[in-house]
């Protein structure tokens, strides 16, 4: 997989779409990540304007005709404004529409709460059959993209084109990747906080705490085996997500443990019951306590508490 010479999400999508006539790239005038595609794809690039409901409804219509629409809009507007269209027109008939939500989680930075998609994963995974991919960085995204497009299911992808500085395994649907082994602490992380989780693990290692870092690439389907293995082998486990702690990764893990009767404590690290103070990302990471060193401090405290 790593042999593909893709340098960006846009070049990957251009390449994949050029090789498959079924792929239609769509947007509700959210072109930041796909600016060059109108020239590459011609009529197979469809910009409907600022209207997420029509965007998703039209994508369903195209999918009914055998197309694979790859639909771009801001994560908040896509998953909330168009929620019922996604649920009813894409989810119910299980059409292979690929929903790409941009600036999810903390990545809306200084836009303010209107743009903060912190419940998008909760909404999307509540739809039967909808699959959810939250890549840890751009390399992760590019590794997963071919599988997402090739899969017959509807997908929601949290667009993340940042760099985490970690080396990834090949992508497989429903398979998490273990990026670092350890048994004192276990970090189950999804999305853009992968980089912070990796940094936290480095710092914890310096303090003599071995940490397992698991990149939970697809929250739905969840890699139940790797999650339960982590809960079983690590003294303290945390979930780390730039999402409300209700409904996202933590909830998925908690549901799994409750279902299987697995005892243990898992600490949810993410956004509590409030939106974050808008600012550029470094300040947001500091303000939310989600920066690597702050995560390390918190996890060290939990491990010490566990004795």
């Amino acid at each position, binding site marked *: 997989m790593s042999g593909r010479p893709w340098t960006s999400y846009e070049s990957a999508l251009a390449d994949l779409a050029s090789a498959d006539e079924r792929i239609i790239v769509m947007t509700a005038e959210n072109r930041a990540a796909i600016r060059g595609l109108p020239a590459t794809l011609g*009529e*197979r690039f*469809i910009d*409907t*304007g600022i*209207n997420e*409901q*029509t965007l*998703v*409804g*039209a*994508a*369903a*219509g*195209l*999918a*009914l*005709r*055998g*197309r694979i*629409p790859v639909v771009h809009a801001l994560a908040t507007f896509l998953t909330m404004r168009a929620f*019922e*269209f996604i649920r*009813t*027109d894409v989810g*119910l*008939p299980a059409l292979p529409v690929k929903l790409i939500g941009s600036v999810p989680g903390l990545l809306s930075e200084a836009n303010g709460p209107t743009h903060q998609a912190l419940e998008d994963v909760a909404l999307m995974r509540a739809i039967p059959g909808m699959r959810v991919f939250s890549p840890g960085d751009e390399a992760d995204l590019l590794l997963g993209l071919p599988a997402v497009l090739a899969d017959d299911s509807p997908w929601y992808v949290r667009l993340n084109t940042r760099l985490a500085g970690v080396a990834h395994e090949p992508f497989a649907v429903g398979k998490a990747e273990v990026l670092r082994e350890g048994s004192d602490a276990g970090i189950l992380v999804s999305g853009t906080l992968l980089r912070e989780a990796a940094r936290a693990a480095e710092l914890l290692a310096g303090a003599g705490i071995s940490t397992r870092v698991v990149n939970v690439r697809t929250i739905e389907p969840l890699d139940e085996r790797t999650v339960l293995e982590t809960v079983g082998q690590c003294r303290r486990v945390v979930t780390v997500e730039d999402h409300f702690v209700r409904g996202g990764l933590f909830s998925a893990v908690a549901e799994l443990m409750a279902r299987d009767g697995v005892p243990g404590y898992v600490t949810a690290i993410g956004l509590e019951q409030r939106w974050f103070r808008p600012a550029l990302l470094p300040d947001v990471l500091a303000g939310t306590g989600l920066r690597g060193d702050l995560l390390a401090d918190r996890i060290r405290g939990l491990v010490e508490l566990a004795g």
Partner: protein
Amino acid sequence: MNHRAKPGVEALALRVRERIVRLATGGGCFLGASLSCVDIIVALYTTFLNLRRDNLTSPERDVFLLSKGHDVPALYATLAELGVIDGKRLANHLKSNDDIYWHPNTAVSGVEFHSGSLGHLLAVGVGIALDLRLRRQSARVVVLLGDGELNEGSVWEALLVACAKRLSNLLLIVDRNGFQANVRTEELVPLEPLERKFAAFGCGVVRVNGHDLAALEAALAWFPYTEKLGQDAKGGAPEGPSVLIADTVRGKGLPSIEARADRWFCNFTPGEVEALVEELHGAERARLTSQPLAVR
């Protein structure tokens, strides 16, 4: 209109109405909204859509989308009359051993897409129309909307896009029966002047009596409308969706329930249904004998 509907079509519409009335029991159905669109659906299937039992999955077929899904008895009854579905299935109405429930679903042959939540299928139709154009196919997309459904902003949003994309292969039909669920449209969220609203968006608009089958046939034969409405703002050949506003009567065919606000959803006893079937046939006989000889 001074010509007649195709032979047999009026009789077909009557049989469709009878089938619908027979669904208004044992749990009931949205009878008023179903009876108002019977003639529209019958005209579509008998004179416009290239849909038959043997081409329902052909990529070249026309696509008919029922966006006001609660009128599905009219579609099922028409499909039964045309042999697309087995008429015996209508006896399974509201039973869990079949899929004949209050809104359309694709488990029933001839249903292109499910609906029930208003304001969805124009957007879906836009996507299908875009695909047909990408493939250079000449098939057409017809979306039937209720007038109350026009309260939904998503209809107008999708219409903006349909006009922006110049989708001449798209026909919207509005079943203008004058009622929302519970009240008259003009008393709640007034829609008129409806023709001017659609025209201002860039649609070609035709308005007819939605119970005059000959007028409906003529209006459908006239599609696409934008081509016939002069030049566009830039002096080019106009392109865009067509809109057919069909003025109808809620509950059409049953004088005892026609145009009544409380006759949206009806659940009658079997005895009442038989009386209504009698009323339906009586009203049809009266209608035929009252028509002037010139148009007979």
